[in-house]
C-alpha cells in the first residue's frame, strides 16, 4: 500500500492538469482509507491478532561480540490492534483532508507538488504505522519528517515559511538523533540479556505479548535502560512538540492550513505519542522513565495552554492547543496506561482536524488569520460556526463530545498512578488547571471569530462558505468528534484498545471517577463562561496598559523567550562550532605550527627559504601530526590501556 502511494506521488508531479492530479490523489487516499477500514474490521473480527509479513533486507553475520548470531535489517508489516487503530485514524483523516484540499487549495500554485508531497507523507505515515521493527519505524519516521519539512515550506517564496520549515526540520532532528541513540542503547542493553541474540538475528521485531518484552527480560530498572527510555522520550518529544522541543510547531503553521490539520494536528505529531505507546508496550519503560514522561507531558500540557490564552492568530491558538493535548496523551502513557494515550490520540485526531479545517474555512473566507479582525462570522458561515463549536466543545471535554471521554480517562489514569507515587500529584494538578485554560482559550477564539454582528476590520471581504468539497469533511469530522468517544464502548471496536493491560479504555465510572469527571467538566464549563463573559457578543476585552498582567502577556506572546533562546543557542553552537573549527585551523594550528616552523627555521638557518608559505603549512601539519601520533602511541595509549587493566 505504501508503495502505491509513492507511485501516486511520483505520478502526481507528472500530471499537468492540476484539478485532475488532485482528484487522483484523492482517489488513492480513498483507496487507502478503504484498506484502512478493512484492516481495522479484520482486526475487530479476530481481536488481538498479530499478522506479521516481512522479508530480510540485510543480514549482518555475527562476530564474537555483542550479537553472536548477527543481526538483520527487516522490512515488514505488522497488523495488530494498535497499528490497525492508528491506520484507521491516519487514512480517514488523510482522505478527508485531501478532499478538503481540492476546495481549499484551488487557487494556489504548485499544486502537483502539493499533492505529491501530501501523498508521499501519507505513504510514509502508513509505513511508520505498520512497521514491524524499530529500525524500519525509524526509516519511515525520518521520511515523515522530510515530508513535513517540504510541506511547511510549501510557500517557499515566503521567508517565514522557509525558515519555519528549517526550524521544524532541525529541532525534530535533535529528537531523531537522540531516538536513534536510544534504539542503539536498547539493542546493546538487550543483547546482553537472555534471548537477545535470537531477537537481534530476527531483526528486533515488535513481539506480541502482554508483558513488555524488554522489561520482562531485563527484570526492571537498570540505569542504561532508563537512559534508553529517556532517549525514546526525546525522540517522541521532538516529533510531538513536547517541551523543550516544542517551539517549531506553532511556526509550522506557516504551511497551508490543510497541512496543519493533517500533519501538525492529527497524524505526524501523534507519531511521537505512537512511538511512546509501542515502546511502552513492546520494550517497556522503567519507573524513572515513566515519571520523566509524566513530567514532560504534564508540564507541556499546561505550559502550551498558557501561551494559547493570549495569541491573536487563530491557527496558532489551535497549534498551542495541539501541543497541550499531545501533552495529555504523553501523560496517559507515562501514567502506565499506554492505550489511554492512544484513546486520546484517536479522539483528538478527529476534533483537532475538525478545528483546523473549520479554521481553514474561516481563513479561506476572510483571508486573514488575525482573530481581532474577524467577528460576526456566525451568520454567513453557519456550518463552519457549528463545526468549530463542536470541535471546541470536544476539546474542552464537555460530555457527550468525544474529548470528554478520552480526557477524562487520561485524568483518571494519572490519578490512579498518583495513588502509588505521590510525585505524580503536581502533574495531575497541572492537567486539571489546563482543562480550565483549554476551554477558555478555544471559546475565546470562537467568540472572537463568530459572535457579534460584523467583522471588526471593515476591509475584510464578505464571508461565504466554501464549496462542497470543503463542507463534507466538516460534516464527517463533526460527526466523528461527537461519536468517537463512545465508539470504544462497543465490544468489537473496544477490542482495538484492549492491549497492554489498559483495562480502563473505555473509562469506567465508579464514585471516585464521577467526582473526578465532575471536577473536570466543572472546570471546562467555568472556562467557557469566563470566555463568554470577556469576549461574548463581539466584545473585545482589552487589558489596561498599566495592568499588572501586561508583562505576563508579553512573556506569553514571546513564548517565554524560548524561541529566542533556541536561536541564540543554535547560532552559537552550530555556526560557532564550525567557526571555531575554522578559526582553529586558521589560527591555532597555523599559529602553533608557525611557532614550530620559526623554531625550525632558526635551527636550520633558513633552509626552508624559497618554499611557498602554504605548502610549508601543510607540511608542518604533517609534522605536528607525526609528533602527536608518536606521543599518543608511545606514551598516552600504553598508559590508558594499562590504567584500564590492560589486555
Amino acid at each position, binding site marked *: 500500500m505504501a508503495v502505491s502511494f509513492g507511485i501516486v506521488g511520483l505520478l502526481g508531479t507528472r500530471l499537468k492538469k492540476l484539478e485532475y492530479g488532485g482528484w487522483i490523489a484523492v482517489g488513492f487516499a480513498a483507496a487507502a482509507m478503504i484498506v484502512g477500514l478493512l484492516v481495522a474490521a479484520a482486526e475487530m473480527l479476530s481481536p488481538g491478532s498479530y499478522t506479521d509479513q516481512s522479508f530480510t533486507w540485510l543480514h*549482518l553475520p555475527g562476530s564474537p561480540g555483542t550479537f553472536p548470531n548477527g543481526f538483520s535489517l527487516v522490512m515488514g508489516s505488522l497488523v495488530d490492534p494498535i497499528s490497525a487503530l492508528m491506520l484507521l485514524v491516519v487514512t480517514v483523516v488523510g482522505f478527508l483532508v485531501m478532499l478538503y484540499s481540492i476546495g481549499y487549495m484551488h487557487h494556489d500554485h504548485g499544486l502537483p507538488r502539493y499533492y505529491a508531497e501530501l501523498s508521499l507523507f501519507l505513504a510514509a505515515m502508513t509505513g511508520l504505522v505498520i512497521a514491524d521493527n524499530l529500525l524500519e519505524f525509524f526509516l519511515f519516521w525520518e521520511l515523515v519528517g522530510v515530508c513535513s519539512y517540504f510541506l511547511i515550506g510549501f510557500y517557499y517564496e515566503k521567508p517565514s515559511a522557509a525558515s519555519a520549515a528549517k526550524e521544524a526540520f532541525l529541532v525534530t532532528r535533535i529528537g531523531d538523533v537522540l531516538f536513534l541513540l536510544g534504539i542503539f542503547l536498547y539493542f546493546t542493553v538487550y543483547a546482553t540479556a537472555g534471548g537477545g541474540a535470537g531477537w537481534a538475528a530476527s531483526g528486533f521485531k515488535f513481539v506480541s505479548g502482554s508483558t513488555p518484552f524488554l522489561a520482562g527480560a531485563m527484570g526492571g530498572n537498570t540505569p542504561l535502560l532508563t537512559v534508553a527510555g529517556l532517549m525514546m522520550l526525546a525522540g517522541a518529544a521532538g516529533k510531538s512538540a513536547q517541551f523543550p522541543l516544542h517551539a517549531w510547531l506553532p511556526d509550522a503553521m506557516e504551511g497551508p492550513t490543510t497541512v496543519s490539520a493533517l500533519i501538525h494536528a492529527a497524524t505526524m505529531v501523534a507519531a511521537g505519542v505512537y512511538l511512546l505507546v509501542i515502546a511502552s508496550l513492546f520494550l517497556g519503560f522503567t519507573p524513572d522513565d515513566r515519571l520523566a514522561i509524566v513530567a514532560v507531558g504534564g508540564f507541556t500540557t499546561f505550559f502550551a495552554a498558557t501561551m494559547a490564552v493570549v495569541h491573536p492568530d487563530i491557527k496558532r491558538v489551535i497549534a498551542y492547543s495541539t501541543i497541550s493535548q499531545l501533552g495529555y496523551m504523553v501523560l496517559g502513557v507515562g501514567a502506565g496506561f499506554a492505550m489511554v494515550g492512544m484513546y486520546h490520540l484517536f479522539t483528538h485526531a478527529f476534533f483537532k482536524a475538525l478545528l483546523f479545517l473549520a479554521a481553514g474555512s474561516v481563513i479561506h473566507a476572510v483571508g486573514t488569520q488575525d482573530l481581532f479582525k474577524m467577528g460576526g462570522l456566525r451568520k454567513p458561515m453557519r456550518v463552519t460556526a457549528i463545526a468549530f463549536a463542536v470541535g471546541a466543545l470536544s476539546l474542552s471535554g464537555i460530555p457527550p463530545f468525544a474529548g470528554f471521554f478520552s480526557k477524562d480517562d487520561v485524568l483518571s489514569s494519572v490519578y490512579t498512578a498518583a495513588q502509588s507515587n505521590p510525585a505524580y500529584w503536581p502533574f495531575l494538578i497541572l492537567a486539571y488547571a489546563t482543562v480550565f485554560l483549554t476551554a477558555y482559550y478555544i471559546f475565546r477564539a470562537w467568540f472572537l471569530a463568530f459572535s457579534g454582528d460584523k467583522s471588526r476590520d471593515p476591509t475584510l471581504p464578505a464571508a461565504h462558505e466554501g464549496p462542497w468539497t470543503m463542507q463534507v469533511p466538516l460534516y464527517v469530522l463533526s460527526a466523528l468528534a461527537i461519536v468517537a468517544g463512545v465508539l470504544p464502548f462497543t465490544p468489537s471496536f473496544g477490542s482495538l484498545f484492549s492491549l497492554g493491560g489498559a483495562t480502563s479504555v473505555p473509562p469506567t465510572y465508579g464514585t471516585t471517577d464521577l467526582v473526578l469527571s465532575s471536577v473536570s467538566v466543572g472546570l471546562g464549563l467555568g472556562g467557557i463562561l469566563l470566555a463568554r463573559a470577556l469576549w461574548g457578543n463581539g466584545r473585545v476585552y482589552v487589558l489596561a496598559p498599566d495592568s499588572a498582567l501586561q508583562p505576563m502577556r508579553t512573556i506569553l506572546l514571546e513564548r517565554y523567550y524560548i524561541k529566542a533562546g533556541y536561536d541564540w543557542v543554535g547560532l552559537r553552537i552550530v555556526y560557532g562550532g564550525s567557526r571555531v573549527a575554522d578559526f582553529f585551523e586558521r589560527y591555532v594550528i597555523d599559529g602553533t605550527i608557525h611557532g614550530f616552523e620559526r623554531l625550525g627555521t632558526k635551527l636550520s638557518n633558513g633552509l626552508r627559504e624559497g618554499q611557498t608559505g602554504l605548502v610549508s603549512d601543510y607540511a608542518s601539519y604533517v609534522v605536528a601530526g607525526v609528533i602527536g601520533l608518536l606521543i*599518543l602511541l608511545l606514551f598516552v595509549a600504553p598508559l590508558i590501556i594499562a590504567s584500564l587493566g590492560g589486555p
Partner: protein
Amino acid sequence: MDTTILATFTPELIVLGAALLVFLLDVLGVRKLETFGAVAVSATAIALLAVVADLGFAPLAVLRTIPASSIDLPLGPSLYVVTSLGLVFQAIFLTSALLVSLASLSRPSDEKGSAVFFGLLLMATVGMLFAAVASDLIFLLLAVEITGISTYLLVGYTRKDARSLEAAMKFYIVGALSSSLSFFGASLLFGAYGGTSFSVLARGTSVIGYPALALAGYALLLAGLGFKLTLVPFHAWAVDVYDGAPDDVSAFLAGGSKKIGVFAFFLLFTGPVLLAPALGVWCPAGHCSTVTLRPTLELALGVLAVLTMTIGNLLALQQKEVKRLLAYSSISQAGYMLIGVAVGTAPALAGATLQVFAHVFMKAGAFLVVAAVLGLGVGPRVEDWKGLARQRPYLMLAFALMLLSLAGIPLTIGFVSKFVLFSAAVQAEGWFVWLAVAGLLNSALSVFYYARFLKTIYLDSPPPDAPAPPRLFAPIGYGRSAAIAIAVVAIVAFGIDPQPVLSGMQAAATHFVAIGA
C-alpha cells in the same frame, strides 16, 4: 619463468601493457584522444572482468586466472599474497579507473596531453593493483609510490593552468614528505622485527625486545599513509589539490587513488597484526606495562577517525565552492572508513569496504558531474548553481542522488554502507560504540550541508540579471553520460539490494581477519 606468477598478475599486466601502449602510440604520432581513451577503457574493463572472475563469479569462470586454491592462503615469506579482500579492492580500483576514463572520452578530442593523462591514469591504477596483493611492507610502499608519482603528474598534466601546477607542486611536496615518513617507519620496523614481510610483522615479538621502536615505526606509517587517506591533520593538501586539479583527475583522486590508503591501512593495522602477540614490556614515564600492538593502534585510529569526520564536516559547512565542499566531504568520508579499520572485526572491515565501494560511485560520480557542469560554463561557486535543476533536470537528478547517498539517506548505497559500518562498531562492544555515536552525529551534521546544496540547486532561482552560462544546454558527451549513468544505477541498485555485494565482502573480510593466524 614460472607462468603461474604471470597468471596471478594478469590484471596488473593488462593495465601496465595498456599504459605502455598509450605512451608508445603517443611516440608514434597518434594524437587522437579517443584512441587513448579506448585503450584505457578496454584495458580497465577487461582487467575488471578478470578480477571479478577470480573472485569466483560463476558466469565469468572462463576468464579465471587464479585458482581458488591459491587465494586466502596464510601469510608466508613471499612478496605478494592474493586475498579475496585484495581482489575486491582491485575490482573497486578498476571500477574507478574505468568510470574516469569513460567520462574522459568526452573531453575535447584535440586536447593536448591526452596520452599523458590516460597513460598516467593507467600507471596509477597499476600501482593500486599491486598494493592490493602486497605481502611485504616495502612492496606495499613501492606500489603506493608508483601511484603517488603518477598522480602528482596527473594533477599538473595540462602544464598551462597555473592553479593545476600549484596544486601539483603542493601535492608533490607533501607527498614526498609523507613517503619519507613511511619509509622511515618501515626502516624502524625492520630494525624492530628483523624483516618487513607481513608474516614477520604478524609474529609480533620484537627481536631486540624494545617495543617503542615498533610503536614509533607504526606511528610514522600511520602518518605517511594517512596522507593518502586524507586523515586530519594530514588532510590539508587534499582540498587545494582536488580544487586545483583538472576535474576528472579530482574524480580519480577522490574516488580512486585515495582508496589505496584504506587497503594499506587494512594490511598494516588489521588483518596481519590482529592476532599479533604482545610486543614486550615498555616503560613510558615510569609506568611499565606489556604492550600489545593492536589495542594501542585502535586508540590512535579511533582518535584519527573522530578528528577526521568531525573536522571534515565542520569545515564543509563553511565552503562556498562546489569542489572544495566535495573535498571536505571526502575527508569526512575517510573518517567513516577509518572506523572500520579501528574496529577491525570482520563485519567492520566489510562495512569499510562497502563504504569504499560506495564512495567510488558517490564521490567520483559527483566530481564527474561537477566536471560536466563546469564544462557547461557554470561557475565554481555553490551560488552559481542556483536553480540549475530547471535547466539540466537529469544531470541534477543524478547529482542529487549522489549527494543523498553521501548523506546516507535510505535506498541509496551510502545508507547501507554507513548502516553496516556503524552496526559493526556497535556489535564490537567496548568503546567502539562511541565511534558509531560519533559517526551518527557526524552524519546528522553532514545532512545539513548536502541538503542546503540541494535546496540551492532545486528551489533557488538564479539572480535575474546574471548572464546565462554560454553552453548551458550543450550535450555533455556520451562517455561522460555513460559514466554518470553507471554511477547512478549502482547507487540505487546496490542501495535497494546490497545483499549480494555485501555477502561477498563479508566472506572476504572473514578470511582477511584470519590471515595472520
